[in-house]
């Protein structure tokens, strides 16, 4: 069975576009519109990977990442954060918060899918 990706993104177009492109690659995709919904789905759907925008309503990406990484049930799920702010500090912040990888918007789909692939590959043996 193909890996399941939880996509948390508040922008409707981006959410739609990304989920369709991921599905085209064969991934199963679950989407959430805000941090709280994402938090619930992360626990109920047990996805193989989480792709989240950093500026989310209800609960921002940093906070959500911290919560997910603090909980035993979700700690193992790799997280890739997406941010529009291409600041060095954002990258650092992302790793500090516990993210496994980081990418900037606009999405370079090829690059993103490489990251997804490598994180999933890394996860499998363990």
């Amino acid at each position: 069975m193909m890996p399941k990706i939880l996509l948390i993104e508040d922008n409707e177009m981006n959410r739609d576009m990304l989920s369709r492109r991921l599905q085209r690659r064969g991934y199963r995709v679950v989407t959430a519109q805000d941090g709280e919904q994402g938090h619930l789905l992360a626990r109920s759907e047990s996805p193989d990977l989480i792709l989240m925008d950093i500026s989310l309503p209800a609960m921002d990406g940093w906070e959500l990442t911290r919560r997910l990484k603090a909980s035993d049930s979700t700690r193992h799920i790799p997280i890739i954060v997406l941010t529009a702010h291409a600041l060095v500090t954002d990258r650092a912040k992302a790793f500090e918060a516990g993210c496994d990888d980081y990418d900037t918007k606009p999405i370079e789909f090829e690059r993103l899918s490489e990251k997804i692939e490598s994180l999933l590959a890394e996860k499998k043996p363990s």
Partner: protein
Amino acid sequence: MNLQNLSIKGKLMLITMLTSSAALVLSSASFLIYDLISFRHLLTLDLMSQAQIIGYNSAAAMAFRDEAAATATLSALTAKEDIVAAVLYSPDGTIFAHYFPNGSAHPSTLPGRSQENGYRFEGGYLEVFRDVTLNGERVGTLFLQSDQRQWSVRARRYSAIVGIFVLISGLFALLVSSQLQRLISRPILHLENAMRMVSTNKNYEVRATRFYSDEIGRLIDGFNTMLSEIQHRDTALQRANDELKTRTRELEGEIIHRKQTQEELLKAKHAAEDASRAKSAFLANMSHELRTPLNAIIGYSEMLEEETRDSGKVENQQDLRKIQSAGKHLLSLINDVLDLSKIEAGKMGLHLETFDVSLMVDEMVTTLQPAIAKNANEVRVRMADDVGMMRADATKVRQILFNLMSNACKFTDHGTISLDVSQSAMEGQECIRFRVKDTGIGISAKQQEKLFQEFSQADATISRKYGGTGLGLAISHRFVQMMKGRISVESKPGQGSTFTVYLPAQVTLDTVEAAQLDGAGGTQAASSQHKSELDTVLVIDDDPAVRDLMSRFLSKLGFRAIAAADGDEGLRLAREVSPLVITLDVIMPECDGWEVLRKLKSDPRLAQIPVIMVTVVDNQAMGFDLGASNYLIKPVDRDRLAVLIEKHRTARSSSVTEANVHSRPAAKKEERQPVEAEVSRRS
């Protein structure tokens, strides 16, 4: 009373009195003594002549042993009041006849027997012996004793007269001297009075009056000259003092004025900074707002292209690619503007990593392929053997080279573009030199001047013909500067261009600068992340008041302040809590601040903790020599201290951030590295 401390007046009078009295007493006494001696002599002669007469008169009576006649003769002496005894001795020495006027004489006071002729003074009496002779034969001896009454009366009387005379003349001398002493004492007393007025009232206009042309007169003249000299100098001094006061007031005014100007400048600076921050925040926001729809445009067009490719609808594919390409061009423009605004806002930080230069160059050239192919150019890369690894911001180095190379491709048609990479030296520092040479249209000297400025493409027509924002070189230039390198150009129109970039092989991070560059947005969050470990400030000062004030001030700024009263405690606490910053006093008992600083800097665990000297000692050179980061002189400018500590906080957070990134496992780092490269490739 001590004679020496007597007033001049008293002394003068005393001297006059003593002198005159002594002279008078001496002369009177000598006169008196002379008179009394001669009077006594007279009395002696008189008594002797009397003895002669009585002897003569009583000679017959003695010869005939007529005692009654002899006694009668003696009795004639009653007229002489001073005769107290008259005795006639027989030649054998026995008393023959005697006479005692008052019957008071006692036989025992008389000489037992007759003696030689002559006189003598015996027991206050004058005694005379005289032989009584008759026809040359000694018939007896007469003895007369006188109490010299006249003499003693005279002596007493004369003494009294002399005494009275001395007294009177003394009084007279007193009278005269009390008048005459003024000749001397008056000018002196006047002088003294004048001096007192000068010394108590500090009134140098006082002048002493000169009475006579004697020594005192000259003294007063001298005194007056001295006074006028002092007065002259005093006036000059006063004038100088007044001038100084005026000047000080002027300076104070100047200082106030300058302070005001400074404050205004500071306000203006803050306003400008605020404006700049607002601008960059706006740009960052805008770029986010622009990127979001672009994200959708590029994403959907890519997706559509894939779908059309899969379904074989080739006719739409070209149009979709155009949408994509236009979208990506727009994206690169936005990225350039954002980069520049970040640089201008000081938010562009250096992200140092060690990387293989040739790998990076290969990657970059691969990314460049579409641009190379577009104008049918040939690219030659020459990599010197000695170029290995370098430590720099790889993304920025790649961006610089990509910019130069893509420019070269853009402005060269069917030509050759060469990239030479070699080891070099710049100002004694090991450097990597990148040289990009093309055979393109070239750049005129005038155009070269503005080449690295923002929005200054060589010609307005160029942007129409070749596209681009004209920001590429400006950004490259800034990046090179950030890494403390150098970029230069050599070109002639029609003969191609050569761009040369020197970058240090080991770029170092200027901590404070990096902190500033890193910007507020990210660091604040980062610092709050590390708050518990970062926000301790150690205050080492022996003054409890300073410790208290600093602690309160630091708490207000949101730091945990701990204080040490001496160097040893300070060192111990520094090891225990490894504070963010240490503030250090110099003058302390036992272990002074210099010593503490030396110890701090020689301990590898403590050496990296920034030390801010906070002291009254003005010896910055010493402080910096020993490794202090900053130097503040008491009284401390709190704002400055706050700024310094804040800087150290951000510096530390950014270095922690960097450390975190680099402490990630190597495998992951490699995964992240191609990120920017791919951005470039696709743009």
